[in-house]
């Protein structure tokens, strides 16, 4: 199985791999939007032609670029799909404000359904897609990006909703952007197309994680070809550096998933897995919006920003977090995030402490 298309483009036939790869980088996304989204984007690419996927080094440094993502809940997205013009409109509104034109687009996060946003915009606006993103996975807040760490401002940004309404946000300090934005997203219908971090390709060369989009496609292709869990994990390891923490059976889904365990529902869910081989440890997987920690017999062995996935062993495919059942046999995989996410400042922002898990990241000790 070869890597990205040799001439660096995303075609209609790559769309299913794009979706699968997107799931790897955020297991919280279910399959509710799979069919209509992949069907639409494939048709769009057929109609408008393939989107050019280009590394930042291959474009002139002065090329203006803006990032795109989908902000809000995947549920809301599935319940009220886009009319189709939200992404292009978001880009155009920022462009109008800045009295400029964006010559390229890039993903704010090459993960989950957000990874489709720049592809759609690129196809509709006829511009190239830069193979670099700001997260390398998903994070909860839009200032958790390499761009922000490099001093690039997230605003002015535009959130364009499915109702035709839009919100333009301009803030002085980056963390405020998310706060100002959140309530608006709910009002807009639960999700919105977000265009943010207007910048240049030259800045992206050092301020973004390069190659993440093509990596995502590659992961998707590996996942689609999966027949056997062990082989799948080997191949994934080659692309992402992931390793298996353990294989076990789900023995409990705690908090919200067990009616008798509820205290306050905003508390997150936990998945308990009993290893079937090796040291037969009890693995505890803590979920917030995605997996934030894995404890083996109470010892923290993986935590955000590590990317953690569950593989359904018998099906040799990713297990989505909303369809886990006691008795399922799963593999717990962990892949490292980009190096810079493990610096003390970055860990303070996105590490386990930021999710309420007051333990030190295993990488630090």
């Amino acid at each position, binding site marked *: 199985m070869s890597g990205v298309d040799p001439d660096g483009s995303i075609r209609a036939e790559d769309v299913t791999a794009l979706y699968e790869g997107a799931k790897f980088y955020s297991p919280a996304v279910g399959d509710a939007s799979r069919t209509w989204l992949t069907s639409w984007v494939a048709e769009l690419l057929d109609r408008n032609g393939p989107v050019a996927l280009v590394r930042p080094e291959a474009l002139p440094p002065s090329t203006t670029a803006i990032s795109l993502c989908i902000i809000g809940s995947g549920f809301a997205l599935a319940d009220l799909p886009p009319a189709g013009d939200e992404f292009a409109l978001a880009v155009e509104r920022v462009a109008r404000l800045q009295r400029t034109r964006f010559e390229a687009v890039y993903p704010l996060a090459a993960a989950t359904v957000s990874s489709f946003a720049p592809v759609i915009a690129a196809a509709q606006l006829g511009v190239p897609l830069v193979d670099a993103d700001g997260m390398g996975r998903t994070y909860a807040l839009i200032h958790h990006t390499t761009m922000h760490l490099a001093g690039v401002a997230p605003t002015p940004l535009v959130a364009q909703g499915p109702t035709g309404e839009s919100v333009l946000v301009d803030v002085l300090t980056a963390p405020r952007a998310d706060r100002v934005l959140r309530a608006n997203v709910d009002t807009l219908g639960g999700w919105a197309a977000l265009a943010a971090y207007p910048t240049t390709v030259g800045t992206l060369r050092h301020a973004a994680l390069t190659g993440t989009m093509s990596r995502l496609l590659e992961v998707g292709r590996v996942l689609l070809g999966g027949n056997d869990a062990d082989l799948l994990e080997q191949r994934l390891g080659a692309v992402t550096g992931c390793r298996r923490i353990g294989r076990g059976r789900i023995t*409990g889904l705690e*908090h919200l998933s067990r009616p008798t365990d509820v205290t306050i529902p905003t508390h997150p869910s*936990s998945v308990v897995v009993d290893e079937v081989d090796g040291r037969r440890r*009890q693995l*505890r997987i803590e979920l917030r919006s995605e997996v934030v920690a894995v404890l083996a017999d*109470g010892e923290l062995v993986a935590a955000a920003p590590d990317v953690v996935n569950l593989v359904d062993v018998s099906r040799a495919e990713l297990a989505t977090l909303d369809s886990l059942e006691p008795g399922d046999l799963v593999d717990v995989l962990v892949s490292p995030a980009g190096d810079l996410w493990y610096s003390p400042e970055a860990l303070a922002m996105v590490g386990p402490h930021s999710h309420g898990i007051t333990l030190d990241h295993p990488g630090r000790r």
Partner: protein
Amino acid sequence: MSRHRPAQPLTLSELLRTDPLRAAEVAYVPDPLRVVERVVLAETVERVRRVTPHAVVLLHAEAATGGWSLAAALHLAWERNASAVVVPRQVAGASSAALAQRLQMALLLVDDDPVDLALGLAGHVTAPASARAARKARVAERLAEQATLRGVLGVLNDELAPVPVALVVGGTVTAGRTAAARDRDGTDRVTVPVDGADGRAWGQLVAAVPAGGSETAVQAAAVLRLARPSLLAAWAHSRLESGASAAHEQAAFALLRRQSGQPAERGEHAPREASDVEAPAWSTGLGWRVAGVNRAVWIAPGQPGDEVPDELTHLLRAAWQRGRPDWPLVVQGEGWTSWYSGREPADVTPLRRSLADFARTATAHRLVLGVGRAHEGVPGLMRSVAEARLAAQVAREEGPGAVRWFDGVGATAALAWLPVGDLAQVAELCLPELVAAHDREAVVGAVLAVLDCGGSLGRAAERLGVHRNTVLTRVGRGRALGLALDDADQRLALHVLCHALATRWGVATTGSAPPA
């Protein structure tokens, strides 16, 4: 027990029996006898990382946010060799207990505020002696509330769990857990003797503690000793009860006897026809069956005039009714009566079996038994009782443990009624030289044999298995001591007297071996 020995730290099981941990729910405890040396209140999971061994760790605030923090704390507690982890109940789930089991770390769930708990626990852990004293006081209180043997043993087993405790009386476990009395590898036996109200040893309290734990043994012994007053009270209570019920039964039996027209003692009335007297309804209330064909048993002391103490009644009742719980045992003067009521007069199998079971007890207490014939109805019961009594008297001649069935008793039964004790007294008064003589048994035996054989010296010698001259000599001696055989007026009296003395002194009346 030296006063200078420092107090041993409390064990987890001791802590679990003292406030405030008494109300805790035990999610998992691998070893209740694990010591606890200190208390640590951990606000963060990090704090647990610095815990020293043998601490009990209470989690609160950040360290008790959720299942993950408990899991992390359990792991760290295991690494640091803590004794136990205590956490608010709502934080733990089934997986927490499973993890505790995997790590072999004790996990307790509480509803109280951990900070308050920590203060209370710290007080106990730092002063184990006073904690133990407080616990002993509480145990004493609990024991004081118990009125039965079962209740007392229940408290003891509860307080000392997992150590089993039993009350052993006469070699058998009367109450509590039999595991305490069994010899098993890895356990030592702690024994505390228990005396009855009369000051005599009555039984023992036994506990099986794990071997090698001397402190545990000492603590167990202390708790067992606390139980003695309550055991005594329970014992006395049961005596009173059985004493009361014995009196009740006696009165009931007397009433029954009067109803059937039988006189209380040997009298002149003939019993009424069986059909005239019906079994009164209240007798069934006592659990007595009198309406069918009744066959009575009489139990008498081996020697007439022997005491019939209440204690003995109690023991006999227990022994007799083991296996025959519905056969009454009523005290009657100097003996006890019981009966078996059935349909078939000839069916004696249950009775034979009971008598065989009872044989050992009878021999041990030097009792004899008599069995009457089968008669119908209440009057029939009374008649059978009289027959059984007579048979028992006859059985005395055969020694302790003997059983005589009336069917085989004849006129010689009359002799059984001789008041042997009184007659012996007559002898003491009227024949003091005889009573004081060193060869009195031989003399009396010879005189009795001669009288039995109608005066024939030769037959008497045969009967005794000695030479005729020996008999002659002994009879001459008897005459000298006051036994005037030749006086016809005195002969009956002498015969009776000799028979009584022979029975009293256990003299052999035939050439066979003397009674044991």
